[in-house]
């Protein structure tokens, strides 16, 4: 009950934020929500046991696809966002047949290498993509209206949260968990491992593409350096880790926490404010391997502060 109230309160705050804050705060929250969605999409792939380093790659593909069809073919910007998502998903679908055979370190490194390959290809097809200098849109989406952009980003982040929750509450969840815990057992109990991996890979990549497209339209430009920047890989991972992996709440908490901290540090420390990400990642890996959310949640469970779970706890005794 209390949990639902908190969620409702957060939704209300998120929806009414533009009413009582200025452009600057809205801008900060838009970028936090962008990273939140990326962080969730990375975590969804991780739930299958596959550590993907391709987040920045699919983010960039989506961004480029949507900007290029607007600039080169005059598409409607909003429609182009969807096309960005579909393009990323489609590329992921094709590559999935090859890379999803790989596991662990090899999957991680191959997806990272793919990110570099995408950016090299885009840099070298300069006639179509604008090469190293990239492409600039005539104007940002909605003529750069921060409130509308905020709602657009909020919708994307909401979509990420909904997909993540669907993954958690449906049959997919069991299949994914089984694959992560023991692939051989999962296979022998009749789970089509490849099919589920491909499904998750394509849907998370499409989501990353959508986020990339929105981001590109928010800032009205793409270029290989900044669009395929590893920040779009590293910061989401840090956020998910800090909050706690394998959950929806973890990445949300992590994104809000790290987003606000780094925004504050940016003001007082123009160079090197990202150091806080590094310190937090190292600290979390060493001392809170389950992330802040799970650690606090478990502590609360133990001291029976969360009322709803008290009965469940005593019942199990």
């Amino acid at each position, binding site marked *: 009950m209390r949990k639902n109230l908190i969620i409702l309160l957060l939704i209300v705050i998120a929806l009414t934020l533009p009413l009582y804050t200025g452009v600057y705060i809205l801008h900060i929250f838009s970028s936090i929500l962008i990273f939140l969605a990326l962080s969730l999409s990375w975590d969804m792939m991780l739930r299958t046991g596959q550590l993907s380093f391709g987040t920045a790659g699919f983010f960039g593909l989506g961004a480029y696809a949507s900007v290029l069809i607007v600039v080169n073919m005059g598409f409607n910007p909003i429609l182009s966002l969807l096309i960005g998502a579909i393009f990323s998903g489609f590329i992921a679908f094709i590559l999935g047949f090859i890379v999803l055979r*790989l596991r662990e370190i090899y999957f991680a490194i*191959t997806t990272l290498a793919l990110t570099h390959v995408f950016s*090299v290809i885009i840099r070298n097809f300069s006639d179509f993509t604008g090469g190293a200098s990239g492409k600039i849109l005539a104007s940002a989406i909605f003529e750069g209206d921060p409130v509308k952009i905020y709602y657009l980003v909020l919708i994307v982040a909401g979509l990420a949260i909904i997909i993540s929750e669907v993954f958690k509450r449906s049959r997919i969840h069991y299949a994914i968990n089984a694959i992560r815990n023991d692939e051989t057992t999962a296979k022998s109990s009749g789970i089509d491992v490849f099919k589920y991996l491909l499904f998750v890979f394509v849907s998370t990549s499409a989501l990353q593409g959508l986020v990339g497209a929105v981001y590109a339209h928010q800032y009205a430009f793409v270029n290989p350096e900044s669009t395929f920047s590893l920040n779009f890989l590293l910061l989401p991972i840090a956020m998910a880790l800090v909050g706690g992996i394998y959950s929806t709440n973890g990445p949300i908490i992590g994104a809000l926490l790290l987003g606000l901290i780094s925004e504050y540090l940016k003001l007082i420390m123009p160079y*090197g404010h990202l*150091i806080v990400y590094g310190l937090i990642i190292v600290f979390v*890996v*060493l001392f809170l391997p389950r992330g802040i959310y799970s650690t606090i949640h478990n502590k609360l469970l133990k001291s029976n502060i969360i009322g709803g779970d008290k009965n469940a706890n005593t019942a199990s005794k």
Partner: protein
Amino acid sequence: MSFSLNKSYKILLLLVIFIVIIGFWNPNALLDGLQRGSLYSLIALPLALVLGILGVLNLAHGEFLTVGLYFIFMLNTRFNLDPLVAIIPTVIFLLILGAIIYWLTIKRVVKEGHLSQLLLTFGISLILIETINIFWTSMARNVYTSYSYASMEIGSFRFGTYELLYILIAVLVLVGLQLFLKKTRLGQATFAVGQNPKGAKIVGINVNYVYLFVFSVAVAILGIVAGTMLPRTAIFPEVGSPFTLKSFALAAMAGMGNLNGILFAGVTLGIGEAVINSIPNYGGWSDIVFFGVLIIVIISRSYRGAR
């Protein structure tokens, strides 16, 4: 770790043929490639050592190189020390830094899953980059030495002599490492730990000490690389970052623990890169060589493994 000689000879023969063909076709690209290749393999050797013995893929590898470069840069600007001379204090500095970082962090994740290892070393790399950012900002910097652009002429063919040093040092470091692993007691212990940590523990080897030693030495080798590189490279906080993935590409291509193979792989890819780089209008595609080869090698290994 495998050091099968027969296989090495075959690869060596193929490599020599490859080099001769390229040499006739495009001698400039050959020389450029040899230099690049030895630099790549020089940087990849310590990564492969850590990967082979600790089983940790150190994502902060390139950043340790950056730290070494900046340390030498500092010695050069403050005390006017020649970069090549500054190698000695830098190696000592990196040895200590590596030991401290191992002791504080890596030690705790050696036995854990790949995820924590990758994330931890990734966090370390972020800390190193940003620390450099705080002290030196993101501006690119240079060191000038009188000898770095010296050149030589053979007939009508003119080339820079300084980069030949890369080849020399790559061979020296490789031979030094091999001698150390085979001839010294500590080296043999390292070898044993790499093959079977549990067995090594049973026969009385202090595994943790070997890990500490290997990690610090691997970081310290980067000090040598940094000193050799600095006269010819502009430095900025992300200068070392691309080398991490390239080093892993070489280690994956050579096969885990095959140190000789790294030199072959490095030279082959270095020449490949240089050849593509020398084609007018298509030079930009040279970046794809490493990643393309990395992806192909990993995927073809996975297909062979499945059979």
